């Protein structure tokens, strides 16, 4: 498409307007959370509350742990299953795909309405820690994780790698963990990233099942200390953006490596 000068100017203006539209609420969060009483200068008191307030601190730690556990469970559950389906039971791949994309059609709100019976059992068998939300969160993350990992798997020749490894005597565990997994790392990493973003922002399940995660705690504290809640929300955005930058750096690393160097 040849771009005329006029078009390029219009495009520049358009993109700037959009960028402003998206940046303004974020900047206002920064401004709002650092306001001092009586409009006198800036203060980071609200940010300090995030660390000093005991309930908030525990909730933030719970959310971070949940993010880690969700990524771990997702990888452990999904990656071997998808590799196995590709290699040994390709017939089931349509079913797996359908099931993994099902959470896109069944709203989270509906799942949580029906899940309280299941969670009563989870509570009885495992306990009532907020970390049991991991199970629900893995379900929510499934569609995005599936797509990421599926496209990564499609890009490499899983059959040959697996056959070669098996013929050299590798167990299935070695094939999955040490042969295939490193090659689909990009897909796994982007699935992990989406999982973290989702967990840190997830409110529906946590609030309706009465668990104290970071978003729930932020809403509670917003009734007494609005600035601290806005600071907390901004902090989670910053964290996710940092993760995104790390992810794109890693991605570029892998892409620039020549094929011969792939392990």
């Amino acid at each position, binding site marked *: 498409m040849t771009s005329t000068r006029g078009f390029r100017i219009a495009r520049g203006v358009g993109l700037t307007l959009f960028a402003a539209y998206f940046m303004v609420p974020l900047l206002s969060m920064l401004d709002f959370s650092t306001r001092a009483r009586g409009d006198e200068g800036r203060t980071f008191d609200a940010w300090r509350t995030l660390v000093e307030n005991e309930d908030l601190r525990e909730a933030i730690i719970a959310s971070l742990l949940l993010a880690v556990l969700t990524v771990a469970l997702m990888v452990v559950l999904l990656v071997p299953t998808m590799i196995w389906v590709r290699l040994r039971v390709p017939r089931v791949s*349509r079913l797996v795909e359908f099931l993994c994309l099902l959470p896109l059609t069944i709203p989270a709100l509906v799942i949580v309405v029906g899940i309280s*019976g*299941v969670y*009563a*059992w989870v*509570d*009885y068998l495992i306990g009532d820690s907020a970390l049991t939300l991991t199970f629900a969160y893995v379900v929510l993350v499934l569609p995005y994780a599936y797509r990421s990992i599926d496209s990564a798997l499609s890009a490499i020749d899983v059959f040959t790698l697996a056959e070669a490894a098996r013929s050299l005597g590798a167990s299935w565990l070695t094939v999955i963990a040490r042969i295939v997994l490193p090659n689909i790392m990009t897909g796994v990493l982007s699935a992990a990233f989406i999982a973290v973003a989702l967990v840190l922002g997830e409110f529906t399940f946590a609030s309706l099942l*009465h668990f104290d995660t970071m978003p729930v705690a932020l809403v509670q504290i917003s*009734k*007494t200390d609005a600035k601290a809640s806005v600071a907390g929300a901004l902090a989670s955005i910053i964290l996710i953006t940092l993760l995104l930058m790390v992810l794109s750096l890693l991605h570029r690393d892998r892409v620039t490596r020549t094929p011969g160097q792939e392990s």
Partner: protein
Amino acid sequence: MLRSHRLAVSVAAVSLVLLAACAPPSDDGEESTTESGVSAAEATSVEDFGGMEGLVQAAEEEGELNVIALPRDWANYGELIDTFSEKYDIEVNEDQPTAASQDEINAANDLAGTDRAPDVFDLGQSVALANTDMFAPYKVATFDEIPDQYKDPNGAWANDYGGYMSIGYDSAKVPDVTSVSDLLDPAYKGSVALNGDPTQAGAAFSGVMMAAIANGGSADDIAPGVDFFGDLKKAGNFLPVDPDSATIESGQTPVVIDWDYLGAAAAKNVSTWKTVVPEEAVVAGYYFQAINADAPHPAAARLWQEFLYSDEGQNLWLKGGARPVRGDAMAEAGTIDQALWDALPEVGGEPVIPTNEQTEKAATYLAENWSQVIS
């Protein structure tokens, strides 16, 4: 192949649903017994503990008390909690101070069997009367001094403190309010806030009841109240924000329909805050105190009740501007804080307290009509 897949899945699903429908065995929890072998969860009075010392000992052994939905600036609850905590060396866990009455019941249900369930409830009328099967009967030492209409004869619940529904406003921001219908004036655009959702919170329920009575309704007929708020919304005067001390201080909610004792608390932060109980609609309301039948700390819960209904506890509530339920008896006995008791505002007109049936009827009407009027 896929067909039998699906069949298998649906069979498994249905069977699992049936299984999940049977709830897991509930954790009865450790029975908290005193040295004399009394089960604290079944104690119905302080004698069951062998006297006050026995109760204190059992409670201090438990060491903790879970309370819920008690804002620190609501009828001086902050001082009550701190005094109790220091006096008896029991740690008080304050959960969800901004929760409504319904949230207390939900928390008790969702956290049943765990250590985090609430031990005691402080509920609005409609929610309390709908959930009496969740309360453990217990008669405090001063039970006989509570007037009959303010308690359950078996001790399942008792009123603790009360007040009148009022209109609180910042006189520096809006004109003076003398009656409920004043609020429809354009001067109050975007100013009037109701404390909560009337289908969930007792204060909001009584607020709508007050509007109903002021507009020709009665305790039997809450419809004019719902219509009033509809008109308020159409006039642009209704503010869909839950008021609290922060919003009052910042000026976000210049007019608040809430209990008169909360107006007293607001006046501490905003010197120009005034509270008015409209003469044409005097709605009185007491809150209901009860012990959770599944309380994780049953002895501490009972000690808390004893504390609240003691002279000390009742006077602390009075300090928060609320009328303690034993107020009249204490005034006669001379144990009331006379200065605070006299300082309570005079209220003209006939106070209305809806009965159980009236409350249920009103709640049904609200459930069917409130949300579309206010949205």
